[in-house]
């Protein structure tokens, strides 16, 4: 205890000698990123709060993160494979192929809707305390990421059930996950910032997600898209992500259109950088308009 107090006073002295903070209009703080690092604990706490709250009110708690994707997978398999008789990819069982896509899609869809709402639902925090605002949407994405990891267990279960052994490519999965992450974050930042000023974007998000589900290869394989439409199709960045997931998980003869994939990744990078730029630009007025 005495030691703690001692170290406390050292910090105190260090803080004293620290140079003064200047607040001015339009000053882009050079220490923004340093601040972001300093507030990392708050970031953990916000994510922890959201996860805790999510599962507190529910009876079966974390099981929801399993049930939802599982049932969706069953429905998709029945509709697309048994009724529409669409082909699977390589020799993978249809459920595994569907689930390999469902995993990133649900992550994206949850992250985007949470992220775009995050500023509004934390309005009281934003108008009463200072912290780098980027923390709020980022922690919203993290929460969806936890769900993503949980529902990843279904995939393992499916693989065990079908005796499906993935190839070395599964090791590249983190890279594709990172792209999904960047995409959710990029789009999320745009929508979150726009949502503060124009509440209409509340209605835009469900629309994007509904529409996106149809134009992304979630229930079917990208191979059924004609070659000449491939590049237009790849303008949807989720195509790159999902194809990447399938390529990594299913392995074998799965093909991935690398040119399309490059377009997707480029778009994701653009979206993310633009998102950060726009967020930083509008961030200073959040407290006034929220």
């Amino acid at each position, binding site marked *: *205890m005495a030691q*703690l107090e001692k170290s*406390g006073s050292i910090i*105190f002295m260090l*803080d*004293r000698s*620290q140079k*003064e*903070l*200047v*607040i*001015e*209009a*339009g*000053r882009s703080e050079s220490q923004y990123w340093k601040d972001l690092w300093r507030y990392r*604990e*708050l970031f953990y*706490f916000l994510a*922890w*709060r959201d996860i*805790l*709250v999510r599962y*507190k*009110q529910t009876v079966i708690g974390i099981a929801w993160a399993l049930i939802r994707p599982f049932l969706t997978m069953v429905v998709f398999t029945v509709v697309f494979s048994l009724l529409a008789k669409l082909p699977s990819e390589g020799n993978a069982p249809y459920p595994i192929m569907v689930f390999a896509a469902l995993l990133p899609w649900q992550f994206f869809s949850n992250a985007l809707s949470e992220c775009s709402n995050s500023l509004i639902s934390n309005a*009281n*925090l*934003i*108008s*009463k*305390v*200072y*912290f780098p605002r980027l923390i709020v949407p980022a922690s919203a994405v993290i929460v969806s990421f936890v769900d993503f990891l949980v529902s990843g267990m279904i995939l393992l279960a499916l693989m065990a059930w079908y005796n499906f052994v993935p190839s070395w490519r599964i090791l590249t999965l983190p890279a594709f996950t990172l792209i999904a992450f960047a995409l959710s974050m990029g789009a999320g930042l745009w929508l979150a910032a726009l949502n*503060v*000023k*124009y*509440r*209409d*974007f509340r209605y835009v998000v469900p629309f994007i997600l509904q529409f996106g589900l149809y134009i992304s290869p979630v229930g079917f394989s990208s191979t059924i898209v004609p070659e000449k439409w491939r590049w237009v199709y790849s303008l949807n960045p989720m195509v790159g992500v999902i194809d990447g997931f399938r390529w990594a998980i299913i392995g074998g003869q799965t093909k991935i259109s690398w040119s399309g994939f490059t377009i997707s990744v480029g778009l994701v990078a653009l979206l993310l950088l633009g998102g950060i730029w726009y967020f930083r630009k509008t961030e*200073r*007025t959040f*407290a*006034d*308009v*929220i």
Partner: protein
Amino acid sequence: MSEDIAIGVENLGKKYIIGHQKPERYTTLRDAIANKLKSLGHQPLRQRLNNDAPGREDFWALKDVSFEIRQGQRVGIIGRNGAGKSTLLKILSRITEPTTGRVSIKGRVASLLEVGTGFHPELTGRENIYLNGAILGMSKVEIKRKFDEIVAFAEIDKFLDTPVKRYSSGMYVRLAFAVAAHLEPEILIVDEVLAVGDYQFQKKCLGKMEDVAKSGRTVLFVSHNMQAVSQLTERCVILAGGRTHFDGPTDKAIMTYLVAQKESFDQPAYYQAPPNKSGNHVTWARVHTSEPQGLHCWGNPIIFEFALNITEPQEGVCFSFQVVNAHQQAVTYQWLFDSEKPFGHQAGKVILRCIIPKFRIYMGTYKLITWLSGRGRIITESLSDICFFEVTMQSIVRNEFDWHPDACLYIEDANWEIYHP
């Protein structure tokens, strides 16, 4: 900026754009697009950037505010609703950006604009302590170290693992304040957070705040509670309409503020007779309080002044008045007999002054009842409910106790002696 200035504020201004039609502050996309289309083309870019929709106008919540606060100084900020106090604190705590001007701050700042920011009703007290602590800028280690102290201060140990939505509002506030009270910044910025909780707890909070203030930290404190302000601060800035109205010692600032407050409402501290009055009567009456606007600091001299118009001079005239409190209770009675000091057996105007060297009546609002009588004690005129004035105890700061209204009628001068037999 010199060495020991903790907060320097120069020409600070904050402009808000307020809409008159819509209750919400955010716009809808439709409006934004409509405005863009309307203003496209025929206007220079500069103007286009301004939000020039109908029903919107610029509003300066703060304008040209400048002051400096030395390290360890305790400063209060007072002002009416909407004066810009919270806006100032929000700028100082980096929540919002100023439109003009510059602020420089030296030291770690903790600001407390609301107790319980970020409390989540579904989470337990324990969880909320951690969450709220992190939000206020404490590290996890720090919270852990102070956890027991916080719980003890809030007196909620039994409910630590109950979701806070099951708390009574008092318990909620107690917990929230307890976390905030254990912050250890160099500069503490507090907005009106004491206006919550029951009286006991408010006192406890005030005590805690005093400890913080006395430990050499710089404190910036906003409150409508003048008692708390005078107890906690040594200097005050009065904001009015976004500008600095006064900056100086707390007792003087509070007086200035209370006087300005009274200006706008309240009955006048003088009486003027209607012009058509006949017979012996009071033409005007006035209370000379120690401060302007009928505000009187306890213990100071006070003068009651009455002008009489004697149209029927006679023997045995008597003038008297009562000071009556808000409960219609007469607190003191003063009189003057013509037989003792002649004033009524000569026609014309006469002015009577009643001087009380030390006016010891307790704080509250008071008014007068006057009696003018003639021969045979026949009352010629009686006026009631005139000359309102107010007594405050602001000049006397008691650190241990607040002044309660109606604690007594007056305070007697007394000496205490202590013996140890």
